[in-house]
Structures are given as C-alpha cells and as structure tokens.
C-alpha cells in the first residue's frame, strides 16, 4: 500500500512539475484572490485587519477546489483508469498517494499565500510562523477530504458544480478550526480544541478513504 501510495504521489507531482499548472494558473489565481480580498476590505482596513486568517483560508478553499478538480482530471485522461485497473494497484494506496500529492501541492500554495498575507495584509510574521503547523494539518485534512469528494464527483454530469456543494460543508469545520487556530497563534487564545477537530478530521478522512476509495474507483 505504501509503495503504491508513493508511486501515485510521485506520478501526480511529476505531472504537476511538467505541466506547471500549479505555478502558472493556480498560484496566480490564489494571489489575485488575496489581493481582491484586500481590495474588498479597503486600503484603510486591509493593513490592520484581523480578518487575515479567515481570508487566507477562504483563498485556500478556492485553490483547493481547483486542485481537487485537477487531481481527479489527470485520472480521466483517455486510458488512465483502464491502465490503473490492469496494473492491479491497491485502491487504498492510490487514495493515500493522491492525498499525499494534493497535500504537498496545497502546502506549496499555502506557503506562497501566507507570504502574500504577511506582505499585503500585514499579518504578524512571528504569529504566522507559529500558525504554520496548524495550517499544515488543516491543509492535509482538506486534501484527504478533497480526494474522497473528488473521486465521488468524478465521471458524473457537472462535477465542477457539484464538487463545491459536497465539499464546502465538509470543509466548514476545518476552515473554522484552521481560522481559529491561526487567530490564536496571532492574538493568543485556546488552541487545543481546534487542533482536536483538525486531527480527528484528518484521521477520519484518511480512514474512510483507505476503506472506501476502492468502491468509488469501481463505480
């Protein structure tokens, strides 16, 4: 299973490295969204806003939706599914591999967006660094959930419109927990309960994905 996971993750990351979709399409979109959020707040508020953690996660939500569609899209190129079926890869390994690749992509994007937040929304640097572990866990959980939901909507009519309907409620507790833990790292406050939500979601989605991803691949 681990070997399959590493193989699939490597394949997905290589596709991203060669196609440069993340670099030339997703990252500019994320940074533009962040700038638009700043413009929506107005020049007087953007620099001293306490909304930066929320805006960061809002932008990451948009980026994640794009990346989930992208991650499932590469599996639907002509013959890919058939090849995977013929190879007899363990579905649990495929799920873990796709989750791992999506996590790495989200971490890279998140690092750039966090940098953008520090520059444009004047988020405190020390607090932002302290929030990085919670951001990493939140994005990992979003990647695990996103891989499941991406597979759920893959191959049906209108996956691009159905995916947000299914994923946004699933992401909501993660976004709230991520935003609160980021805010706590910046301004102080309780952290453990938000960590519990993120870790339970991460473990829960990984467990469900390992058990049920094969069912979705079959369908």
């Amino acid at each position, binding site marked *: 299973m681990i070997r399959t996971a590493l193989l699939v993750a490597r394949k997905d990351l290589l596709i991203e490295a060669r196609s440069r979709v993340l670099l030339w399409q997703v990252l500019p979109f994320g940074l533009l969204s962040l700038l638009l959020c700043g413009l929506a707040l107005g020049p007087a508020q953007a620099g001293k806003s306490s909304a930066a953690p929320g805006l960061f996660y809002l932008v990451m939500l948009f980026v994640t939706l794009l990346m989930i569609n992208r991650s499932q899209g590469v599996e639907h190129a002509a013959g890919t599914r058939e090849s995977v079926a013929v190879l007899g890869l363990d579905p649990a390994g495929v799920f873990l591999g796709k989750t791992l690749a999506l996590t790495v992509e989200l971490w890279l994007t998140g690092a750039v967006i966090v940098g953008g937040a520090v520059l444009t929304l004047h988020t405190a640097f020390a607090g932002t660094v302290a929030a990085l572990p919670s951001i990493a866990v939140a994005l990992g959980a979003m990647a695990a959930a996103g891989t*499941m*939901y991406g597979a759920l909507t893959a191959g*049906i009519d209108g996956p691009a419109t159905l995916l947000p309907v299914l994923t946004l409620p699933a992401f909501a507790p993660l976004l709230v927990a991520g935003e609160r833990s980021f805010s706590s790292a910046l301004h102080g406050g309780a952290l453990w309960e938000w960590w*519990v939500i993120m870790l339970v979601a991460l473990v829960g*989605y990984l467990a469900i994905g390992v058990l049920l991803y094969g069912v979705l691949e079959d*369908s």
Partner: protein
Amino acid sequence: MKLLQRALGPATLVTLLGTFIMGMWVTPKATMLDGGGDLVRMLYVHPAVAWVALYVSFGTTTVASALYLWRRTRSVVMDRIAYCAMEVSALFIFLTLVTGSIWGRPAWGVWWAWDARLTSTAILGVFVLGYLALRRANGDPEARARRSAVFGILIALDIPIIHFAVVWWKTLHQSATVLNSTGNVLVHGSMLWTLLLSFVAFTLLFVWLLRFRYRLEVMRETSQQSRRDVAVAARQREGA
C-alpha cells in the same frame, strides 16, 4: 407484520395527539425566570424533531449505506432505504432549525446565533442537499447507489460534532437534559413523560413517512422502467 404496518398510521396519530394534549394542557408552564412561561412547551416538539433528524434518520441512512457497501447485504432495498431516509431527514432537519429558531428568538433574543450546535446542524442540512444533488446527478443506478452510500457514510462524521458541540464549546444551546453524562435526568414528572411520548410520536412519524416514501420510490422506479420498455419497443417497431 401486516398488522404492525396497519397499526403504524393510527399509532402515529394517537401518540402525536397525546403529545399535543399533554404538552398544551397537562404539563405546567415554566415558573423559573429563564423558563419563559408557555415557551417551555417547545420542549415537546424541538428535541423530538432533532432526535429524529440527527439520530434516527441519519442512523437509518448510515446503516443502510454501510449494508449496501457490504457485498453480502448489497441490495437495491438498502439503497432505497438510505435515499428515502435521507429525504425524510431533510424535512426533519428543516423542522429542527425552524423550531429551534422559534424557541431561540424569545429565549436568546435572536432568530439565529453562530453557535456551534446550530451551525453544525445547518452544515448537516447543506450536506443533505448535497446528497440529494448527488442522487440526481448520475444516470447509472449502480454507480449512483455506490457513490451515495459512500457519501452517506461521510456525512455521518458530522453527527458526533453536532452531538458533542455543547460539551466541546461554550454554546448558547443547552447541554443534554435527559441523556447526559451524569445520568441525572433534569426533567420531572408529567414534563418528562410528555417529552418521552413526543420522542415516540416523532419516531413513529419518521417510520410512517419513510414507509410511504419507500413505496413511492418503488412506484417511480417501476414507472421509469415501463416508460423505458415502451420507448425500446417503439424503436424496435421503427427498425422492423
């Protein structure tokens, strides 16, 4: 079995009527300052509706979905039960939010609060809409059933969050008064019996609605199949 099925409708009506009579005329008004007089009578509607929405209907959907995914028990019956229970659940979640809001306005001063219990219940409502959208998005019945079963199990992750929201966070919503961790029931006398009767009444109402919805689904599938057969026969006649 047939007798039970026949008795289901009358039993539902009798228990609902009993709850109404007990709740309106037998049980007392609240006398404590925070009780809100007649407002306490919402106790015989809102918790029971929420019980059905969160535990009975979702439990039914989750168990039926799991049984569908397990090869030994996989059948179209399980898929239908999961789907129909989810549709009935949508109604009960809506009622939970509405009755909660009606109770919350005089008690808290607002129709809606960004409280952990309320928000997680609203998220569950959106999940249910997503489930219904997923059912309508896919043409192939078997693939649709599998996807729906997986999604039905994924949604169930929200139920523990809703249940423990009042324990994990400081919420406006009160904590459990009957099934609490201390085992100390905080409702007394006629109020407790009426509350328990309301739980029975709304559970029976759920079963009754589920039964009707299931029959409707079977009829819909049969009619769809016969329409398909007619269309195929017409094409064959054209070809002949």
